[in-house]
């Protein structure tokens, strides 16, 4: 169990900058997700932490000790790969035992056939067998120990890969999209299990995924990566409620956050699609973007801020996602509505929308979050 600290990690492949200065401090026992679209450098970052790839610049510490230049085997980390990467010629038990055998047995003791006869080997092997059994029990794969990976289902292989990672006590677990090869149902189930495993082991987990739901549901903190940078690293609720960057807001949350063109006038008063809001931003006239989560928008008859008509509705049973084409805007907005309203939400129905101005997230034209928004009921500071 240990902390993991990254300082100014950069990585270039030839001319391409893959990582441009990553700083991240992960506490002991913390579950941190690296999430982002494909090509954002999250897997590269994990491989650099693992020691499978070297950084072009920057420093890594694990448990307070610098590990730069240390090969992967000596960093005392465990990794679960997306493809599971089980040894196809070994049984499940042998697969799980490999990390222990490589570390605890001498080269002579590892020799096939005669290795078991070497002095001390019997005792070591008994201990290894016991720990393999323990790991297998934890993951409920103790019935599969004699099988080969080729005879296992995807979910079972994934458990074996987890078993191989947790059979020894590493400083931290690195997981590279471990659920992406599972079907949807199993993914939800395994998600819970990994989160529970993290709780019971109280170990440091670094989890790479492109799936925001996985990141949201399991993590203590989420680091949202894009274009080789960490845009924001915060608790899941904070990332969702209070994104620092429009790209973070757009990446996290499903359905996607609604972004509307907005502007502030000379006094700083903000308006969206011509509707004035009781919000103001010091600094005079500028182009802004206003983002609203689908649940922040509500249908209303009384004094609506925005007008539009229903373009599409998706009934999920417990709620309806309504897509509304706004008057004066090109893109549609999505909102969540009560299924009881279905009858009124036929295609082309005229609807009025409103929202609580306090829930609107204001970004500048480049997508940076504007945090100095004030309620316009107060006097705007000059």
């Amino acid at each position, binding site marked *: 169990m240990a902390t993991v600290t990254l300082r100014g990690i950069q990585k270039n492949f030839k001319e391409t900058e893959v990582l441009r200065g990553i700083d991240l401090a992960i506490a002991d026992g913390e579950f941190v997700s690296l999430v982002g679209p494909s090509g954002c450098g999250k897997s590269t970052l994990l491989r650099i932490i693992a020691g*499978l790839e070297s950084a072009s610049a920057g420093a890594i510490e694990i448990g307070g000790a610098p590990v730069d230049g240390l*090969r*992967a085997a000596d960093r005392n980390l465990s990794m679960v790969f997306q493809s599971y990467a089980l040894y196809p010629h070994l049984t499940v038990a042998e697969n799980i035992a490999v990390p222990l055998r490589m570390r605890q047995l001498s080269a002579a003791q590892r020799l096939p056939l005669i290795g078991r006869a070497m002095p001390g080997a019997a005792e070591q092997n008994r201990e290894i067998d016991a720990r393999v059994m323990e790991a297998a029990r934890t993951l409920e794969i103790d019935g599969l120990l004699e099988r080969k990976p080729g005879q296992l289902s995807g979910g079972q292989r994934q458990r074996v890969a987890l078993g191989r990672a947790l059979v020894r006590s590493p400083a931290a677990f690195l997981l590279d999209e471990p659920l992406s090869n599972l079907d949807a149902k199993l993914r939800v189930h395994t998600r819970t299990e990994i989160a529970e495993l993290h709780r019971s082991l109280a170990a440091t987990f670094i989890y790479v995924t492109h799936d925001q739901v996985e990141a949201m549901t399991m993590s203590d903190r989420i680091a949202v990566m894009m274009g080789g940078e960490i845009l924001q690293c915060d608790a899941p609720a904070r990332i969702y409620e209070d994104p620092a960057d429009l790209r973070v807001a757009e990446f996290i949350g499903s359905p996607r956050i609604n972004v509307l063109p907005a502007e502030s006038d000379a006094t700083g008063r903000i308006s969206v699609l011509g509707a004035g809001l009781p919000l103001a931003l010091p600094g005079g006239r500028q182009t802004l973007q206003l983002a609203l989560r689908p649940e922040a928008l509500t249908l209303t008859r009384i004094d609506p801020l925005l007008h539009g008509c229903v373009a599409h509705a998706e009934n999920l049973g417990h709620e309806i996602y309504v897509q509304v084409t706004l008057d004066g805007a090109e893109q549609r907005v999505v909102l969540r509505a009560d299924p009881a309203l279905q009858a009124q939400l036929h295609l082309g129905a005229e609807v009025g929308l409103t929202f609580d101005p306090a829930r609107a997230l204001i970004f500048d034209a480049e997508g940076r979050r504007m945090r100095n928004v004030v309620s316009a009921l107060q006097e705007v500071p000059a």
Partner: protein
Amino acid sequence: MSRLSPSLMIRHFILLIGAAVVLAPFVVMLSYSLKSPAEIERGTGGLFGAQEMMVDPKCALRSAPRREDVEAARARFPGADDGTILATLTNEARAACEVRPVVFNYRSAFQDAPLLRYLANGVIVTASIFLLQMVIALPAAYALSKLKFWGREAVFGLVLFCLLIPVHAIALPLYLGLAKIGLTNTYAALVVPWIVSAFGIFLMRQFFMTVPDDLVDAARMDGMSEFAIVWRVMLPTAIPALLAFAIFSVVAHWNDYFWPRIVVTGDRNLFTPPLGLREFQAGADGNLYGPMMATATVIVIPLIVAFMLAQRRFIEGITLSGMK
């Protein structure tokens, strides 16, 4: 069932001709190994020969009655003159030497030449060559497929270039080199020139390219050194490809006549099976085709048996369908 359309029939006809051309020498070899010399000479006896008793000429020569045999046998033939006794004894000796042609051919193969010794040499040489080829080709292929280093593509280019060099072009310099260090007429001369196999490196590299990088990374995380990865991870996953290479390598060197003929000049104890065929070649009494073909049959049988056993995996390896 599709009907036999004319184009299909033509196709099959061409394939059948091809098969016949390839199989004919083999059939002749098998057939000759069963026939008596007289049948071979006259072209009679069909495929299997009539298998009529024949007299083993060597045996007959060996046991031909001599002067003292006639003297000793006089008691058995009271009153007969020497000529009659000699004729009777000769007939007896010839009768004792009567064998079936198939027995004669195969017995000659093993008795007239130390064929077992040659077979053992063949096993020693081909096994040593293959093992050493593996020891060199696997790490080389691993490096060329999974390690990143400056000039890797250039090195691989050189490997491909080496595939283009015909053996015969470098035979003379190789021979001179071996002669200079006094290695001719040794097992080393038969083995050493072949242990770096460009084809082996190429084949294994192509196979290793299909092994997921994650597997190598997982092994690194598990604490394996690069060499341990080659022997403990890559080798076991590459068994099908290795088997394919084994067949190429073993067949080529088991059947090789050219190189052993060059470097083994005197010592018959080093003869490989193909060199053994020369024992029956154009002696004073002409070619002994029967025993020669029997020898050839014995030589190819191990290869055919090995191929039959490994056929499925061999084809797997050739198609290089590794893991997904």
